[in-house]
């Protein structure tokens, strides 16, 4: 059960890691790479807190081995803002609309919604609910999250 050498491109930076085969991608990001923005809630794929973008598509990082991600590109919540620190439209909208309270679930929502709006720039309420249905929030009651998604769509449309 020797460690496995893998190469991940995380938020545009090539990272080489030696990690046990059983290491979850979520733990690899947090413990091996120090990127603790990816939160771990349930570790069986229900809560959505650990959602990251794998080659641009949202996936559960707790339901993937780090070794499986070898050679792939990963974007975590740390990689959503511009290099100069300017928050992304989705991040700004969540701040503006109070789309969070304690913030634990927020990294997962931000990654999920970033991909959702890329694929569907003007979603209906129903499409937003379907899109974020795999992410649980215990604070907001979701109303402000839905508002945030629509606001993010507006910001993206204004800035494009």
């Amino acid at each position, binding site marked *: *059960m020797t460690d*496995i050498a893998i190469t991940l491109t995380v938020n545009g930076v090539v990272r080489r890691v030696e990690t*046990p*085969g*059983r290491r*979850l991608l979520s*733990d690899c990001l947090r413990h091996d790479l120090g990127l603790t923005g990816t939160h771990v809630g349930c*570790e*069986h*794929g229900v809560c*959505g807190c650990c*959602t990251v973008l*794998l080659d641009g*598509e*949202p*996936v*559960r990082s*707790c*339901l*993937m*081995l780090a*070794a*499986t991600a*070898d050679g792939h590109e990963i974007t975590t919540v740390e990689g959503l803002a511009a290099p100069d620190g300017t928050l992304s439209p989705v991040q700004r909208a969540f701040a503006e609309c109070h789309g969070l309270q304690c913030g634990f679930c927020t990294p997962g929502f931000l990654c*999920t919604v970033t991909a959702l709006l890329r694929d569907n720039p003007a979603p209906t309420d129903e499409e937003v*609910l*379907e*899109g974020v*249905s*795999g992410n649980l929030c215990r604070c907001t009651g979701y109303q402000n999250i839905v508002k945030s998604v629509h606001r993010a769509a507006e910001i993206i449309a204004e800035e494009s």
Partner: protein
Amino acid sequence: MKPPPFDYHAPGSVAEALETLAEAGEHGKVLAGGQSLIPMLNMRLAAPGHIVDVNRLAELATVSVESDGVRVGALARHAQVERAEQVAAAQPLLRQALRLVAHPVIRNRGTVVGSLVHADPAAELPAVLILLGGSVRLARPGATRDVPAAGFFTGPLESALRPGELAVSALFPTLPPRSGTAFHEVSRRHGDYAVAGVAALVRLDDDLRVVTAGVACVSAGPVPVLVDVTEACGHRPAASADWASAARAVRDRIEPETDVHASADYRRHLTGTLAERALRDAARAASDE
């Protein structure tokens, strides 16, 4: 809540994967999408000695429409199959069912063939395979075999897959003209496993009379339950077929269990109601063809 230790293998070809699986025998487990296997590892419900990760085998990430049906490779993700327009045109039931599988994010990783091999009686795709009379292609070094759906699902989370075999693809047959399908289910929360669910298939003749009608029910027994309701609904025009009688036949045939989510009686009632809805929708789709 972390996976137990195992030897990790990342074969670079199908041949190498088959050799590795043959050596590992009953201690080996294939990792494809991992959306069922990794939760089971995290919760220590499974502890295989060897994990054979097939995610590098791009040759298995295929979906193709062939003369006899839609062939889905072992690494084709739910989302990939769901989005493929040629698949939706050739076999609409696949997209109808895939939209009910968990959440969009799970469907980005989970695989169709993995869902079949996982053989959860609450899952949608085993019911689809049974209803369509499809098959699963299993490989070991030097040999492949096609197992018909009727013999593939042997119990809850149990299939005809033998230790050392790799499920390389599944075939979902296409249907003759004037056929229609539908999938209805009820779950407690969006994306949860269904409390009850029904896939329906209705074939009509040129006069729009019912030729065959059948359903496959999920969460209704240890394996997906196939019920032929042709006799019950009668060889009548789809518009006046006795769907209520068909629903009764379904209720009589299934053996759901009581659990924390629903009683057996409620599941039986719900399955009948969903069967009637799904059969009506399938008949309507067949009429519109």
